[in-house]
């Protein structure tokens, strides 16, 4: 039979968003692929040139609806670098906790969406049930369920509500047991193992050269994580270890390793959260008023021409970078240029190449295991 091109997407359950994967097949085998993005390009970088530094945070929330908190933090860190703002230590702890709760919620959303890809619908209901616990916690901080607009340049919007730490502790302890439940459900499921093991190999060096970062690299046996290689916040003060997984082949990590590393990463986030509650300066059950110097310092609002700000942040899907140039419109209140590096934008073309040689039925497993999110990649 002759080779032919088929188009998966933009409306296809595999895509996890709007994009198109064009696949050339020879029978059941993938021989070539081509990714097409840009279906939901909103021009965030251009819009940000007409907004001042405070107004940009909500746009960065909306880059990724699954992991809004980490994207807003990533932007705010770059803005702090540009505006030379200092963050109080208590605010750093609050940010760490907010970002890690978001990481749990995001990985749960990934796992919940990955389950039906593989044929396990139970997983989705379980994951969304548990994700709700963490969304409730984030809602208490930011006021809304998905887009929080929580971090501020120089601190955070509000302090932890009274009792938040206790609720967090109870939920995290419950969730640690739930992770074991997931593993009992998945690791003994033949379908899960057959569909994931031995599929979608990727080595650490290849992935890094192609720009892939985050859990996908750590699945290949290296514990590199920007939370310690490019240290920020107070990750050096809390108790955790970067999640890392032993790859099952010299060809690198397969889909199963990428699933395992995210489960381990959720455990580490839980560990970090429980420790941060104990160590937060001022105590976790104290509530400072908004704008108190314990949680927010006053930052300049204008950046001079020629100043630049850059941040490296471990988002839930990999390393996100923001690069800002000062001296824009409104006499320096706006950025002149704001540029976003989205981990998934770079990952998708790599994953498309990874699929070559596997079967058409493996495409959802390979694609899903890299955790694509089109909101952030199209910007």
């Amino acid at each position, binding site marked *: 039979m002759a080779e032919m091109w088929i188009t998966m997407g933009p409306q296809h359950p595999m895509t996890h968003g709007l994009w198109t994967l064009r696949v050339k097949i020879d029978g059941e085998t993938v021989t070539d692929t081509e990714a*097409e*993005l*840009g279906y939901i*390009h909103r021009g965030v970088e*251009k*819009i940000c*040139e*007409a*907004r001042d530094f405070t*107004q940009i945070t909500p746009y960065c929330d909306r880059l990724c609806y699954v992991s809004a908190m980490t994207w807003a933090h990533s932007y705010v*860190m770059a803005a*702090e*670098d*540009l505006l030379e703002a200092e*963050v109080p230590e208590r605010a750093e702890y609050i940010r760490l906790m907010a970002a890690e709760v978001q990481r749990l919620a995001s990985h749960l959303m990934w796992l919940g969406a990955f389950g039906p890809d593989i044929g396990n619908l139970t997983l989705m209901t379980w994951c969304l049930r548990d994700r709700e616990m963490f969304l409730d916690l984030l809602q208490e901080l930011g006021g809304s369920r998905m887009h929080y607009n929580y971090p501020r340049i120089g601190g955070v919007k509000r302090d932890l509500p009274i009792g938040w730490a206790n609720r967090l502790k109870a939920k995290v302890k419950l969730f640690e047991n739930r992770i074991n439940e997931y593993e009992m459900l998945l690791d003994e499921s033949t379908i899960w193992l057959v569909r994931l093991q031995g599929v979608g190999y990727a*080595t*650490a*060096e290849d992935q*890094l*050269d*192609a*720009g*892939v*970062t985050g859990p996908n690299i750590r699945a*290949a*046996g*290296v*514990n*590199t994580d920007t939370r*310690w*290689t*490019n*240290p*920020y916040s107070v*990750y*050096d*003060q*809390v*108790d955790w*270890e970067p999640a*890392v*997984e*032993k790859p099952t082949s*010299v060809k690198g990590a397969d889909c199963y390793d990428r699933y395992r590393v995210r489960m381990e990463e959720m455990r580490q986030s839980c560990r*970090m959260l429980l420790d941060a509650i104990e160590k937060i300066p001022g105590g976790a059950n104290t509530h400072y008023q908004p704008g108190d110097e314990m949680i927010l310092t006053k930052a300049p609002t204008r950046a001079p021409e020629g100043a630049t*700000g*850059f941040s*490296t942040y471990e988002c839930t899907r990999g390393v996100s*970078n923001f*690069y800002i140039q000062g001296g824009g*419109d*409104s006499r320096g209140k706006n950025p*002149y*240029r704001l540029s976003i*590096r989205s981990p998934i*934008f*770079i990952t998708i*073309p*790599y994953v498309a190449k990874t699929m070559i040689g596997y079967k058409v039925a493996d495409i959802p497993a390979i694609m899903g295991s890299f955790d694509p999110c089109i909101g952030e990649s199209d*910007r």
Partner: protein
Amino acid sequence: MGTTVTIEQNAEAAKACVESLNSRFSDAGVTAEAVAQTSGKKHEFVRIICSPSQLRAIAKFLKLEMGVNHCAMVTGTHFPEGSADRGWEVAYHLNRWPIANVEAHTMTVLKGEELKGDDIPMGFEIFIPLPAGDSPSVPTIQDIWEGADWNEKETWDLVGIDFEGHVNMHRVLNPHDSPVGFHPLQRQHKIRYHDFNEMYDDPQGFGRKPIDEGRVK
């Protein structure tokens, strides 16, 4: 307790990188300096300013001699009111991370405090000012880091910087049938209308008019 890279290690690595770059390239007029972040942990990174013709030599040196293994982002900026020799600028952000392939069923657990020499993670920033004009152009580094591939596509698509030698250049974020020469992040393109800053002139949007207003139907 979480592992970390200390500020002493970082300063030492930044100094070594700057010395090595300067001894190799300072005769050619390339400047390399260690710059500290102004917030957070105040770690240093290496900032390199060079001309387009020097880019590939520097990129190869960084990759082969200094172990820079990750191209994070490529950013183009348009300065229509800039000087004649800086009408455009391209910024590359690169990273060095101690990542190596491992055998099956093994893993590498790095301790940040114990890393030495070229294993210490380091960030690099390359600025390339380009002369004003209609055809900004730099050589491609697509073949040096595969990760630069889609970054360069994006930069061409949005800003219109031409990457000489880039294979398979095409639109990635804008529609594939966008007009030739349309690159929305160039400064002559304004949001929504020309000379109208909707955020300050009309925050509620009451003044917005449909495009075909006044046209006889």
